[in-house]
Every structure is written in C-alpha cells, then in structure tokens.
C-alpha cells in the first residue's frame, strides 16, 4: 500500500509538469500572411521610378528608384484575384535610352518629358481559414494559382516560386522586367 501511495504521488507530479508544459504554445505571428514578391530588373530598361500599387487609392505597396528585392502585399479577403499595377516612370533627360532598349519604340520622345508605362499583373488564389487554437484564434492560408496574367509593355515574365502563402519568410513570386 505504501508503494501504491508513492506511485500515486510520483505520477501526479508528472501530470502537473505535463499539464504546465504542454500548453505553452506560441501564437503564430501571421494570421493574415502577406504575398512576398521580388522584382528583377534587366539593365536594358532604364527608369527613374517604379511604383507598385493596387486597385484602391491607398494600396501603395512600393515606391522607389530601383527594383525591390522584397515587396509585401496583403491579399484581398473578399476576392479571389489580386490586381497589381506596375508603373514605370522615366524622364527623358535623366535616363539614357539605349539603342536596344525596349523604350526605343517610343521614339517620338521629347526632351525633359516624363513618360509613364503601366503593366498589370493579376494573381488568382484561394483562401483557407484554419483554427490554429482557441488561445490564438483563426489564421488564413492562401493557395496561389501558378497561372498568373500580366500585360507586357515592360514586364517580361512572372514566375510563381511557392503556391502556399502562409508566411512572409519566403518569396512567393518573382516579376521580371
């Protein structure tokens, strides 16, 4: 009987330790993971500025003078498509137009003139809501379609690197221009 009591106390201790340790789970940082894209620019296409923005006025995702390594873009929760505008701006006096540049077709250029070229890139995706746990709540995962659509005035190609969007720590797509 003494042994039975000792075993009861021993296993009860294991139960307490087990209960205290097993519930310490960290909540995921990303309940709404962002689309991570990088942009690769061929040197044959000079430009002054590049803008990346969505359909709404406040969807301004990138403004810069070089092609970004990483742009984080939220996906529309009430839609299954994301339209991105890639706007390239160049000013004739500040940009050297090379003979083999794709901009040469725009030969009727005037000096000290700003030109804007806009391409659209459309991603299609599906959304999956998952219950992580009740302490942390629900999270989203997106599955992006490998067939994206784009206009190609200056965008050359779009490559999907990872169709599962559940973290910003990996690049999901690359835009080449």
């Amino acid at each position: 009987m003494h042994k039975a009591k000792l075993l009861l106390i021993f296993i009860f201790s294991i139960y307490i330790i087990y209960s205290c340790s097993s519930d310490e789970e960290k909540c995921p940082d990303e309940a709404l993971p962002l689309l991570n894209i990088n942009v690769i620019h061929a040197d044959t296409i000079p430009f002054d500025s590049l803008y990346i923005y969505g359909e709404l006025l406040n969807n301004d995702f990138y403004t810069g003078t070089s092609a970004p390594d990483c742009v984080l873009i939220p996906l529309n929760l009430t839609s299954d498509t994301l339209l991105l505008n890639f706007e390239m701006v160049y000013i004739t006096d500040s940009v050297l137009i090379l003979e083999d540049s794709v901009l040469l077709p725009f030969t009727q250029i005037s000096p000290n003139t700003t030109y804007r070229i806009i391409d659209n890139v459309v991603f299609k995706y599906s959304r999956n809501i998952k219950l992580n746990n009740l302490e942390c709540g629900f999270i989203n995962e997106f599955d992006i379609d490998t067939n994206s659509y784009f206009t190609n005035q200056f965008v050359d190609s779009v490559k999907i690197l990872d169709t599962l969007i559940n973290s910003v720590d990996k690049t999901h797509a690359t835009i080449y221009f």
Partner: protein
Amino acid sequence: MLRYIFSTLLLVIAFSAFSQNKKEELPQREIFIRPGIDLSRFALPIFHDIGITGFEFSMDGEINYNLFPTFEIGLNSIKENTEDFDYEANGNYWRIGINYNMLKYQHRLDRNMFFIGARYGMSNFTQQATNITFENDWGQSVTDFPETDIQLQWVEGVIGIKGEIFKNFFMGYTIRVKGKIKMDDDLGITPYFIPGYGDGSKDLTTGMSFSASYALPIIRIKN
C-alpha cells in the same frame, strides 16, 4: 516412567498436530463493481485559458483478480467568445475496454492495481464558429462555419494504477495513448478539442485521467 514419557510425547504430538491443522482464515474476497469519476475533468478550466468544461463517469468490475472490463462515458463543452470569433463545441463520448492487473497479490485483501489495458472509443459532437473577423488594407471579412455534426472513433492503449486509499475507496491515474480510426471528412474547420479524445488536429495523441472510485460488493466468495 516409560508410560509417563510416552503420554507426554503423545500430548506434544497432539498439540503440534492441532496447531498445524488450525489454518489462519483468510478474509473472503469480494466480487465488486467500482463506479468512479474522473477528477481531472473538473480541472480543465484551470489548465486551459478557454471556457472548457467536462465530466466523466466510469465503471469497472472484476472478472478475476487480473481482468477488469471497463466502461467510461463523458461530456465536454467548449464556449469561447472573443472580439475576432465565436466558437462553440458540445458533445459526448464513451469508451469500452479491459484492464489487466500486473500485480501479484499477496493476500486476499490486496486490491491495488498496476494495470495495462486497451479501449475502443467513440465521440459524437457538434461545433460551429461564427463572426470570424479579419481586416487588412482591402477591408474587412466576416466568415461563419455553420454547426456541423462530427463523429470520431479511436483506440487507446492505457497504463495506470489504482490504490485503495481507504476501505473500498480508490484513487488512481491512467495514462492514455490514443489513435484515430475514423473521422468524418467534411469538417469545415479542424476540431479544437474532441470530447474523450483531445486535440482534433492530431492522429495520435496522449491524455491522462485522475480518478476516484468506490467498490460496491456484489458477491462474497470463499477461497
């Protein structure tokens, strides 16, 4: 003198023979059933930060000292309301199985157990999640998962002890390793906590119960 010695010897032999024939009577061993409850169910709100409650009743009985058929039945309820979602799940479960006592008792009063065993379990429950709200640059979305009926079947391997703390009153622990056999497919969302089983996202999981029970004698039998 010789007659005296012989009579004395006879008396001595007679006394010793009497002592050997008078065996110590062992107490009769009872056949009993043992209803009990799982006390750890009452501690669920303490070990979880969410609104979870439960109750489990058990019954085992003795076939012989080593074999104990067991039946367990219980309820679980979860309700969690936050700014971002409302979640509710309610259900019941039962398990049936047998325990094998690995202890070799030294005397008939010894009813302590160190057992291994197996269970088959089934759970029927409903879950629903409403007002699941997310918001980002594009706006706000609110999603509902309607009430869904779900059934799960599983098997368990168990190991545990039961000690007789006071006469007929037992306390003990059972450690469980559970594996899913069959669960409904179209769940909407993976169940957070399946009554009787545990984490719905895991095909293999563990659990523990802390029981208190009382032996009710059915038949007293002699050796």
